[in-house]
C-alpha cells in the first residue's frame, strides 16, 4: 500500500473512531427536544375498550369504567378529575366553547402523575332511584361511587318521550 492509501485508510479510521468516541456528546445535540406537551385522558368500559359504555342502568347494579391519564407535559402534574351527574334539564358541558357543566362536582379525584407516566383507576358506580309513576319521573336518591355514597337528592329525570327513556349523564 502506498502513502496515499495509508492516508485515506487513516483518515477513515480516525473519523469513524472519533465519531464513536464523541457519540455520547453528539447524542445530546442530535436528539430533538420534545416540542409537543400534552396529556392523554381516557374513559374505557369494563373490557378496556372505547365503546359499549354503561347505557341502560338498572337499580343498584354495579357498573365499572376505567379512567386514566398519561402525562406528556415534560414535568409531573397535578390533575383534579371532577365527576358530575346531570339530568336532561340541567347544565351540560359545551364541547364548542370547551366549557364544563356548571353543576357542582359530586366527587373530585385528585391525582399526581410524573412525567411520561400513566395513571389509571377503575371507577365502580351504581344508582339508587325511585320511579314516580304519577309524575313520569325518576327521582335519584343516592349514587355509590367506588364504595362511597353520594347524595343525589334533588336530581330528577323527566320521561324523554323522544328517546323513550329517563335520561341522565355521568360526566368526568
Amino acid at each position, binding site marked *: 500500500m502506498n*502513502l496515499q492509501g*495509508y*492516508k485515506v485508510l*487513516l*483518515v477513515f*479510521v*480516525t473519523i469513524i*473512531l*472519533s*465519531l464513536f*468516541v*464523541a*457519540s*455520547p*456528546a*453528539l*447524542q*445530546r445535540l442530535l436528539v430533538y427536544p420534545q416540542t409537543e406537551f400534552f396529556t392523554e385522558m381516557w374513559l374505557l368500559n369494563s373490557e378496556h375498550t372505547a365503546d359499549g359504555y354503561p347505557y341502560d342502568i338498572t337499580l343498584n347494579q354495579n357498573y365499572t369504567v376505567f379512567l386514566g391519564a398519561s402525562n406528556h407535559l415534560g*414535568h*409531573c*402534574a*397535578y390533575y383534579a378529575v371532577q365527576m358530575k351527574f346531570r339530568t336532561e334539564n340541567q347544565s351540560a358541558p359545551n364541547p364548542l366553547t370547551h366549557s364544563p357543566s356548571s353543576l*357542582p362536582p*359530586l*366527587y*373530585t*379525584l*385528585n*391525582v*399526581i*402523575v*410524573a*412525567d411520561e*407516566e400513566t395513571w389509571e383507576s377503575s371507577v365502580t358506580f351504581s344508582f339508587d332511584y325511585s320511579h314516580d309513576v304519577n309524575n313520569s319521573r325518576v327521582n335519584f336518591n343516592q349514587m355509590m361511587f367506588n364504595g*362511597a*355514597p*353520594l*347524595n343525589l337528592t334533588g336530581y330528577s329525570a323527566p320521561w324523554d318521550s323522544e328517546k323513550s327513556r329517563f335520561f341522565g349523564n355521568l360526566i368526568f
Partner: protein
Amino acid sequence: MPRSKTPITIVVILLLSVTVVASPVRADQEAAAVAISSAKNTIVNCCSAAAEAEAAGADITSLVDTLNEACSLLSRAELAYTANDFAAALNLATQSQNRLNNFVGEANTLKENGTQQQNQEFLINVVGSTVGAFAVIIAGFAVWRFLKKNYETEAHVK
C-alpha cells in the same frame, strides 16, 4: 298583654337557639373549607417541588406516591365536605397536609442529588467524549506523521 308576650318570647328563644346551634356548624364549615383549601395549596407547592426534583433528573417515584396518598385524603375530605360532615372533612384535610410534612425538604435533597448526578454525567458524557474524540484525532494525526516519516526515510534510503 301576657297573651301577646308569649309568641315574642318563643320567637326570641327560637332565634337564640338557631344562633347558638348554627354558629358552631358554620365555624366547623369554615374551618373545614380553610383546611381543604390549605391542603390543596400544599399539594400544589409540593408538586412544584417534585417537578423541580424531576427536572434535575431525580427519581421521584417515592415523592409521587406520598403526594398521591395526600391527594386521596384530600378527595375524601372534599367528599365529606359535600356530605356536610365538616368534622371529618377537617380531619381528613389536616391528615392530607400532615402527610406532606418535610416533603419539600425531601424533594430538595433529591433535587440536589439529581443535579450532582447530572453534572457527573455531563462531565463523563459530554466533556469526556469530546476530549476523547479530540484525542483520537490527534492520535490519528501522530500516526500519520509517523507513517509519513517512515515512508520518506525508507524512500530516501532506497
